[in-house]
């Protein structure tokens, strides 16, 4: 564990060096006690995490590339080319073509759209549900806590992929759209967040500032939203970020098993599922979508780690990688 205290001190030193040598009213050099908001402090801590910055950059590039897929690539994702079947990577086809002559690079870009969209939407909506459940359980305690937490345990007990598969059977008949996948994934993604938020609320509600607010006559609603929630925001954001990586991995796994978004709409998962049949004939079809998933989830995880350092310095438990 790094000594955060030392770093805090070191930072105060930096600050003094950087601050313009202003002079106070007595002509004495004013000691830099420029106050910084929490946000500025967090940004400072985040900036030191070089790897997280690099990863944030990579994620921005990937996201922009998938959004601008139509501009970047001259091909369509379902555009067949019978003159270029199963080509290994070459000049017009940067990542080669598949057995139908579709350009792999284009498909990777369009596939990324779905994967990223699903990942982010699931993480955010699951974060909201988890926060609500955790806040209610942690703040009100007693039977509400018992009920909600037993429900959370139950959701955690059922093997994850199984529920997803069963849910997608329930949706069968209709081909699942990306939104169906989002709903199904969200239903089984809120539990870790609920536990984190419950723990935070349990400890925060005993703090003096909450007692002070209550003695001033603040309502429960005000205490929850104005006093406790802002203090719990750091870990919540970190949790949501890390959930993005998990959601992307799960979506691709589900698509890979054939229960996710269906072809011809490409996602990284179902592209790998198709590539599996040409594992020896066209290994490049296997390389690129997989590498994209790996790079994206790796970057999201590093970003989450950086955010944890920045937003949640007390909580830096090394067990939660």
């Amino acid at each position, binding site marked *: *564990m790094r000594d955060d205290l030392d770093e805090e001190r070191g930072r105060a030193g930096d600050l003094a060096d950087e601050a313009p040598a202003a002079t106070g009213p007595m002509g004495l050099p004013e000691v830099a006690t420029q106050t910084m908001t929490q946000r500025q402090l967090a940004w400072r801590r985040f900036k030191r995490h070089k790897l997280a910055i690099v990863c944030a950059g990579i994620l921005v590039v990937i996201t922009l590339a998938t959004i601008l897929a139509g501009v970047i690539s001259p091909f369509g994702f379902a555009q067949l080319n019978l003159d270029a079947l199963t080509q290994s990577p070459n000049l017009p086809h940067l990542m080669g073509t598949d057995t139908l002559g579709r350009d792999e690079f284009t498909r990777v870009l369009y596939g990324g759209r779905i994967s990223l969209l699903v990942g982010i939407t699931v993480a955010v909506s699951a974060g909201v549900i988890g926060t609500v459940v955790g806040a209610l359980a942690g703040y009100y305690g007693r039977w509400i806590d018992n009920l909600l937490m037993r429900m959370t345990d139950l959701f955690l007990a059922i*093997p994850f992929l199984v529920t997803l598969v069963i849910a997608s059977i329930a949706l069968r008949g209709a081909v699942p759209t990306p939104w169906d996948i989002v709903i199904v994934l969200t239903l089984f993604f809120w539990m870790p967040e609920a536990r984190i938020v419950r723990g935070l609320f349990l400890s925060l509600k005993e703090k003096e500032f909450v007692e002070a607010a209550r003695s001033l006559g603040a309502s429960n609603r005000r205490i929850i939203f104005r006093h406790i929630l802002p203090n719990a925001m750091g870990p919540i954001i970190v949790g949501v970020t890390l959930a993005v990586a998990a959601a992307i*991995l799960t979506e*691709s796994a589900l698509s890979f098993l054939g229960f996710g978004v269906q072809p011809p709409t490409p996602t990284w998962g179902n592209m790998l599922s198709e590539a599996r049949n040409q594992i*020896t004939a066209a290994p490049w079809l*296997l390389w690129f979508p997989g590498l994209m998933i790996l790079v994206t*989830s790796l970057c999201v995880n590093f970003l989450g780690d950086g955010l944890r350092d920045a937003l949640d310095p007390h909580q830096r438990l090394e067990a939660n990688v």
Partner: protein
Amino acid sequence: MWRYVVRRVLFSIPVLLISSVLVFVVIKATTDPVAAVSLSPRFRPEDLVQLRIDLGLDRPPVVQYLSWLGDFVQGDWGNSIITNRPVYPDMMEALGNTILLGLAGVGVSLLIGVGVGIYSALRQYSFFDYLATGAAFLGLSMPTFWFALMLQLILGVYLTRWFGLTKPIFYTTGMSTPGVEGFDIVDRLQHITLPTIVLAVQIIAVYSRYMRASMLEVLQSDFLRTARAKGVRERRVLVRHGMRNALIPLTTQVALDVGSIAGGLIITETIFSWPGMGRLFISAIDLGDYTVVLPWVMVTVTFVILFNLVADIMYAALDPRIRYA
């Protein structure tokens, strides 16, 4: 201690019952066993009605549940609607294969993960520590199925090709070579290696981080300083006083992981055609063999609840401080 164990065991009975109700309701609501055969031209509408009656689907839900629960507990799990084979023996065989693979994965991960974690903690912020941290991030971010396919490609296909072998060193599908009679340890190892690596990569990442964190905590503890002050040799301090205590949090995690094995290896088993629970489930879903799905989910849920119990009891037994929490 015993009071705690008894209370904890008794408490898990209603949890199991409630789970069984929920599993029953959800599976009944989402799947229709007769649907799979209703498209077959060999079945007349009268046959379908008869099939419903044979399966007891015309009875009220509560009666269905109770009779199902009674049969389930006694090991009468009905027949597969596709193959008409009894479900129980097939599923037990699949469960055995899955547990074999799962324990291999967890076992290998424990050996490597604990070693890496302890070494990282002892040499905190060394090159090795950073390497291990990076590797753990990589392992956690790795899409399992992609990693499995790459292993098949590189260790299964390319390796054989590069060395011009007639037989592969590592097999990419199944549990044993067709034609191999009985139990052949070499053949089994050739088959189990790749899926074990796939499982281990993720678990090692988690275990090594866990172990590093708890070892770091123990290294700063007073009892370790006391041991050193008493003149205990450093090696003994680290192993007997340090490692043994640092292992406590990990045991809980291991117990939970073992519990999730039964239903948790779907992807690995599908890719390596390992004849276990995961493959049984996916093939049942693909064929619409829903009479298999209900006992399947029940078995996997029972496993999770059972090993939750084991984890709690082990934790209490190993660390007396948190027994009555």
